[in-house]
């Protein structure tokens, strides 16, 4: 068992349509859950996950075990909720869909263990409405798992009981933000909530609530089953474990690969994705989805871990690279990104609601040949005005990351539209 190096995808292979319960159990499935509820106290499970160094895979990178340990008073009976954030909608990101479609039991087991660790008796899977196949596979897997007492009353004859409800959304990016997700689940308009209070203290219907990303939860069964030391051995650098990394755009083999945390970007683009398509050159990339800063070919040797990518000036985000080639205009690419964010802004706070459409109209004018050089200063000003601390949630600060880095790295592309017109 010690030689498992790709825990998240070990059951996923092209010969199978997807991993059935029998396949899953065959390779150690639900053994982590068995260990948790039979041998360990909830606090022990929290400690194991804390010791593993697992960080949230949804983009923010907060310590998972630490998050669980901050839920107050788990020794006293009280309603608590566990939520799987399966609202994957970060442009360029396609990892959670694969995990749910190909190995639905892995998420379910992770969710049950996480619920046990925080002593939640109700768990929701908040799945985005567009993921129809994932819904079918999860519905089916939930029934199978219930029939074998992996969830329900007295799980595996233990004292722990859990109800799991699959909830599908109706499509809006902001629902991935955990407090907006909670409002969405409650049937309210999905605007984010003020923090504090944090959901850990007062979340769904005012009860302590933990929200974890799908991929994060998928790591949990393996940490329990194979142990912390095994998990610590998986990462290359500061961060532990493996991660699903991906590449899309004009690469030869777009796709997803489970690799150790800290894998160099060059290995992902050149080896796994087969390099840039013939006739094209690498111009830059967004390392972790639409809301991360551009990096350049000079950053190819940076390791894909939280700290190294931050030091290089971007964020690991979801770990799925969006590749910019030399025949795609970076200004038009940024326009596409800002249109997305402007559309998906919930409209709750003024800087985001008004600022993002403003960036869109400036970019459109520039591309239409109606721009002025001062517009670039206005855009730079907007990236600061919409930055951290000035908005109600993280949507706008994320939205301006590709814009601020494009202004820095691709300024001549912006100027070319303007200068050409002036001449």
């Amino acid at each position, binding site marked *: 068992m010690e030689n498992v190096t790709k825990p998240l995808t070990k059951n996923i292979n092209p010969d199978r349509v997807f991993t059935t319960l029998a396949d899953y159990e065959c390779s150690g499935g639900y053994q982590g859950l068995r260990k948790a509820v039979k041998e360990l106290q909830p606090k022990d499970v929290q400690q194991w996950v804390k010791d593993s160094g697992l960080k949230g895979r949804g983009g923010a990178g907060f310590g998972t075990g630490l998050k669980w340990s901050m839920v107050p008073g788990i020794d006293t009976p009280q309603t608590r909720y566990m939520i799987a954030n399966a609202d*994957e*909608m*970060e*442009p*360029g*990101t*396609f990892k*959670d*869909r694969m995990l749910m479609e190909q190995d639905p039991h892995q998420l379910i087991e992770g969710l049950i263990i996480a619920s046990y660790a925080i002593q939640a008796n109700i768990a929701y899977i908040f799945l985005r*409405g*567009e*993921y*129809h*196949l994932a819904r079918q596979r999860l519905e089916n897997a939930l029934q199978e798992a219930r029939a074998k007492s992996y969830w329900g009353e007295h799980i595996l004859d233990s004292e722990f009981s859990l109800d799991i*409800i699959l*909830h*599908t*959304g*109706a*499509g*809006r*990016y902001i629902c991935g933000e955990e407090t907006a997700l909670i409002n*969405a*689940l*409650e*049937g*309210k*308009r*999905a605007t984010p909530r003020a923090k504090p209070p944090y959901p850990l203290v007062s979340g769904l*219907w005012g009860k302590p609530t933990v929200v974890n990303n799908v991929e994060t939860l998928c790591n949990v069964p393996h940490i329990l089953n194979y142990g912390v030391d095994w998990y610590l051995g998986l990462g290359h650098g500061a961060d532990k474990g493996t991660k699903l990394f*991906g*590449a*899309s*755009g*004009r690469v030869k083999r*777009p*796709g*997803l690969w489970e690799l150790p945390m800290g894998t160099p970007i060059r290995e992902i683009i050149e080896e796994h994705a087969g390099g840039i398509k013939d006739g094209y050159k690498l111009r830059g990339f967004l390392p972790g989805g*639409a809301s991360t800063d551009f990096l350049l070919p000079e950053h190819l040797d940076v390791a894909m871990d939280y700290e190294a990518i931050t030091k290089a000036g971007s964020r690991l985000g979801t770990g*799925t690279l*969006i590749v910019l*080639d030399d025949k*795609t205009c970076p200004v038009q*690419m940024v326009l*596409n*990104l800002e249109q*997305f964010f402007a*559309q*998906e802004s*919930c409209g709750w706070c003024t800087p985001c609601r008004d600022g993002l459409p403003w960036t869109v109209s400036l970019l459109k004018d520039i591309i239409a040949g109606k721009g002025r050089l001062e517009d670039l200063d206005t855009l730079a000003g907007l990236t600061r005005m919409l930055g951290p601390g000035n908005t109600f949630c993280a949507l706008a600060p994320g939205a301006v990351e590709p814009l601020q880095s494009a202004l820095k790295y691709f300024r001549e592309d912006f100027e070319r539209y303007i200068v050409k017109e002036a001449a």
Partner: protein
Amino acid sequence: MNEPILTQEEIREINAELEHYPDKAAVAIEALKIVQKYRGWVSDDCLVAVAGLLDMQPSQLEAVATFYNLIYRRPVGKTVIHYCNSVTCWMMGSDRIGESLCRRLNVGLGEMSAGGEYTVLPIVCLGACDHAPAAMVGDRLMLDMTENAVNEIFER
């Protein structure tokens, strides 16, 4: 007394969802989807009726209904074709896919094709960026879309 707006079937399905949540409003999205499953879209009358069933103000439910990409407050065709226009699909030619869908059906975005069969709408990232451009025809995800693949949708 007016004719009941919602059918017995719709009311039964909506009520069946209530058991999963401590509060009726949590069923809002699912209830709107149930109505949409039978009628294709959510009319004002249906919205008011669903709000009544869930003890919500119509304006509260309207705030939810208008928030989401997959709830239609205007009539749409029997099959809605969503083509992804987010960044990777855009790079790989989603504009052409959207245009050829509209040209083939002789409609603008959001309009109904002749006979009320189809409506074409853009959608945000479908999580299929490794097979861009992607589209969703009804519930079915379509990968590596080409203009030929667009034609095949209508020839089946």
